[in-house]
Structures are given as structure tokens and as C-alpha cells.
């Protein structure tokens, strides 16, 4: 792969969370019918159901702050695992929540990536 995987992962992460924080329904473009999200233990499949879940979370606004991004190629299919840790600030809350999230990105025929696997967990103290 001629593109630096770390640069690709960082670009994806920045795109994902800025979309989440400013235009959550547009996240649908990053998932397909076979995409899976496990959100705090709840399992969902398919772009529609995933966006349905993310746009109905019990807050209007939020701000993700990214602390670490790690990535690795994920095997012969050209996919990439991305592992993120960071903070999630909700309006009105005094302290930010801490979270970890894992994405498994797969290449699309058009030359970009979509999210096949997505697992999100809050990290409680």
C-alpha cells in the first residue's frame, strides 16, 4: 500500500469524530448493510440501524477529544484495524467521559474505506 497506514487511520478518525460531532446522520456513508456496531454491549447491523442508534443517543451535542490512535493491517483482504482512546464531552456535564473504540475498515471498489466492524465502550473509573 503506497499510502501510509498511520496517516490513513488518523485521517479516518478525524473525519469520523468531526462528522459525529457536527452532522451525526451523515455517518451512514461510512457503513454498509453488512456493517456491525456493538455500542456499550448492544449489537446492531446495517448502516440504517447503526445511524438510527447513533442519532438517537440521549444527547444533542457532544465533542470527542482523541488521545491515542493505533492501527494495524488486518489481513489479506486489505483491511485495517484502528483502535482509538479519548474523551467524550457532553454539554452541561462537568467531567468528560472516557471511551475506547475499535474500527475494522475494509476497502471499497471506489478506492476508499467503509466500517465493517465498530465496537464502542465507555471506560469507567
Amino acid at each position, binding site marked *: 500500500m503506497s499510502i501510509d497506514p498511520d496517516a490513513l487511520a488518523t485521517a479516518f478518525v478525524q473525519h469520523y469524530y468531526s462528522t459525529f460531532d457536527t452532522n451525526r446522520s451523515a455517518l451512514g456513508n461510512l457503513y454498509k448493510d453488512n456493517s*456491525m456496531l*456493538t455500542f456499550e*454491549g448492544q*449489537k446492531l447491523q446495517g448502516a440504517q440501524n447503526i445511524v438510527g442508534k447513533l442519532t438517537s443517543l440521549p444527547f444533542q451535542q457532544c465533542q470527542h477529544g482523541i488521545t*491515542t490512535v*493505533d492501527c*494495524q*493491517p*488486518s*489481513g*489479506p*483482504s486489505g*483491511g485495517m*484495524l484502528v*483502535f482509538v*482512546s479519548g474523551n467524550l464531552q457532553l454539554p452541561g456535564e462537568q467531567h468528560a467521559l472516557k471511551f*475506547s473504540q*475499535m474500527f*475494522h475498515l*475494509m476497502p471499497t471498489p471506489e478506492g476508499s474505506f467503509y466500517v*465493517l*466492524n465498530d*465496537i464502542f*465502550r465507555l*471506560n469507567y*473509573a
Partner: protein
Amino acid sequence: MDPDAVAKAFVEHYYSTFDTNRPGLGNLYQDSSMLTFEGLKVQGAQNIVAKLTTLPFQQCKHSVTTVDCQPSGTGGMVVFVSGNLQISGEQHALKFSQVANNFPYQL
């Protein structure tokens, strides 16, 4: 087999091996395996086991809080774990998260 049961069994095996027989972890990795440990990238079972067996503590105990898994395409499974790591002599446990992408063993 139920994927969640497989993931749970893997996680229990991995951390009990880590906590009691760290060199035994080598059986779980191959030449193509990759570990990124606190940002440090290591490849291959030998190098991975060398890293894990030279961490600056003799004894540790992992306790797992959450295990999530999903099929990851081409027969693989991603497993996402969060938990605590108690290092002997330390007053407070460290908190950790770990992701593994597991593939069926090719005979």
C-alpha cells in the same frame, strides 16, 4: 459454535496464560502476527513473546470487565476487552483495553 462463547473462552485462556505462564503465549501468535503495545509496534511470535516476557514486572493479574466480539470477514473474529491489571506491589490496579483480530488456525 456460539461466537460469544468462543471469544470468552479465548479471553480467559489468553489472560490466564499471561498471568501464569507468559512464554506460553507464543502458541497464540504466528510470523505474521502484530502487536502494538502502548504504541510500540512488534511483529512475529518470537518478538511479541520477547516483549511480553520482558515487561518490568514479575507478576500480574488481569481481570476482565467487558468482552465484545464480531465476525471480521474471511473467517476472523475481532475481540475487544476492557479490564484491570493488578501488578504485584502496586496499590491501585491499572485499567486497560485490548483488541485482538483472531483468525482460524491454518493446518
